[in-house]
């Protein structure tokens, strides 16, 4: 298949010193590539942070780096605007949605991982449910919220988020439950527990890392979601993404305040993401791709 004499030939043609130089060069390129990519990722964040400290007059002159930093944008967004309210809305929507999703999703994921309840059909349904586009549901949701009086409340957004959060959490948890040894609950059942008790008191606590990873990732997804939130809520019931969009409209631009709002929305999610990253591949792939 591949010639055995190749390394020999290569060694004969390229002196050892050249090979070493080549290796240093390729290692340098390798490091350089990652450095450029990391700079490309970090620069927008850095620029937004700088913008949040600039007085409005300086923002019109982008090339200017030397400016006198001001906390005015931060103070205004946090102290004298409804922004904290929107922040709280996002917290409530995410928390309520995730807790409810875990509550219905965890038993279903367990039943699937242990008994194959519903078989392939259920598994497909769960995957399809989390992937279906919001465009399909938004019009009925809008009308349902309108007729039930929930339009322009955060509860309409929470229910809408359940469309993808509930199946997402379930899909994640299936792979985590499969990793929990069956001996654990069998032992508990020998000791006199019912299967349900074994699930409730033995398996669920053992699955805590998986439950929190699924819950945190679902929280990030709900926090970042804008399409449903834009159509179903407004005024005081805005969530963060909708509030952020409001800083740059045809009516005007408030770059400094927008930057503060972006940082406030992004930083908490980046912190949460560190706890989730290593579970993500397995969770998203439904256990099919080992992470």
């Amino acid at each position, binding site marked *: 298949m*591949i010639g055995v004499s190749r390394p020999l030939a290569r060694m004969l043609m390229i002196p050892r010193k050249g090979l070493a130089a080549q290796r240093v060069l390729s290692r340098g390129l390798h490091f350089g590539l990652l450095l450029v990519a990391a700079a490309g990722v970090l620069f927008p964040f850095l620029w937004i942070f700088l913008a949040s400290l600039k007085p409005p007059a300086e923002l019109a002159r982008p*090339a200017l780096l030397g400016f006198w930093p001001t906390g005015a944008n931060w103070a205004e967004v946090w102290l004298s605007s409804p922004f904290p309210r929107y922040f709280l809305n996002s917290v409530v929507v995410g928390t309520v949605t995730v807790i409810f999703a875990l509550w219905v999703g965890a038993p279903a994921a367990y039943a699937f991982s242990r008994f194959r309840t519903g078989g392939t059909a259920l598994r497909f349904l769960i995957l399809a449910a989390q992937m279906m586009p919001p465009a399909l549901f938004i019009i009925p949701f809008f009308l349902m919220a309108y007729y039930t009086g929930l339009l322009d409340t955060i509860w309409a957004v929470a229910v809408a988020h359940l469309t993808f959060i509930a199946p997402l959490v379930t899909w994640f948890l299936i792979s985590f439950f499969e990793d929990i040894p069956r001996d654990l609950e069998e032992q508990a059942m020998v000791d006199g527990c019912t299967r349900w008790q074994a699930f409730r008191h033995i398996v669920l606590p053992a699955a805590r890392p998986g439950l929190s990873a699924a819950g945190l990732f679902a929280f990030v997804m709900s926090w970042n979601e804008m399409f449903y939130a834009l159509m179903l809520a407004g005024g005081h019931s805005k969530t963060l993404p909708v509030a952020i969009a409001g800083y740059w409209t045809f009516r005007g631009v408030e770059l400094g305040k927008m930057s503060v709002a972006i940082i406030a929305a992004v930083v908490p999610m980046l912190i949460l993401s560190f706890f989730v990253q290593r579970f993500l591949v397995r969770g998203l792939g439904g256990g099919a791709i080992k992470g």
Partner: protein
Amino acid sequence: MSRQDRALGRRMVIPLLGVLLLVQGYPLAFAAWISFHDYRLTALHEIQWVGLAQYRGLLDNPSYWTAVRNTLIFVSGAVGLELALGFLLAYALYRPVAIQNAFRAILLTPMFVTPIAVGLMFRFLLNSQLGIVPTALRALHVEIDWFGPDLALFSLILIDAWQWTPMMILFLLAGLEALPTEPFEAARVDGASELQILRHLTIPMLRPVILAAVLIRMLDAFRVFEYIYAITRGGPGERTETILFHIYRVGFLYFRLGEAAAMAIVLGAIIFILIVLLFYILRRQEAPA
């Protein structure tokens, strides 16, 4: 499996099925019903059965086809670029390098940022008056109108790649790390070059992971909305009007819910095919190879 277990299994699945029926089944049926009616938010008392008229109407609606075309360009451009960059960076992260973990953590961050913030950050960075990028380029005597008619869709693709290449890196890196070591050692003993190994071993062995990652990204890219809402609102002209944005415009700016629902059902059908493919790939991957 005992009868009791089977009964318990059913009871444990029912709450989830109930929720899905309520938040997905019912709305889906409702959306299908609306798509067969002339249903306008401005005339809720004159809802009329029109059968397939609104679906047929899509066929000779040029704006719809422009949106379809833009969406296909966006999805293929963005996912293609993300796959290429993602593979390059995942491979770079896979091989030992200094401060590997720091690089990994930094390169993954964009996928956790709310997309509207990504859209607005780049609208700011690339803005021809306020943005640092055009200002810097002007100093080099290069004049680029990032959101003008020629480049707007391309700029949106770049923005999508900034945010979602990390997802590709995540999947491909996990795939690389899960590869068995023996075939690679054997190939090296046989004197295969790095490039030969990449072409004849690594990529073929990664194929299922690549396919799954590409499909997951395609499913996401089909519902691109936030960047367009944040930056171009479909313009200039209809250059960046995508299907989801068009549905939003027709349904929520023009209030023609029936027509918007018909478009949503068509989009749902396309996405459904992709989901079936993804499911098939994930299942095959799970079966011991």
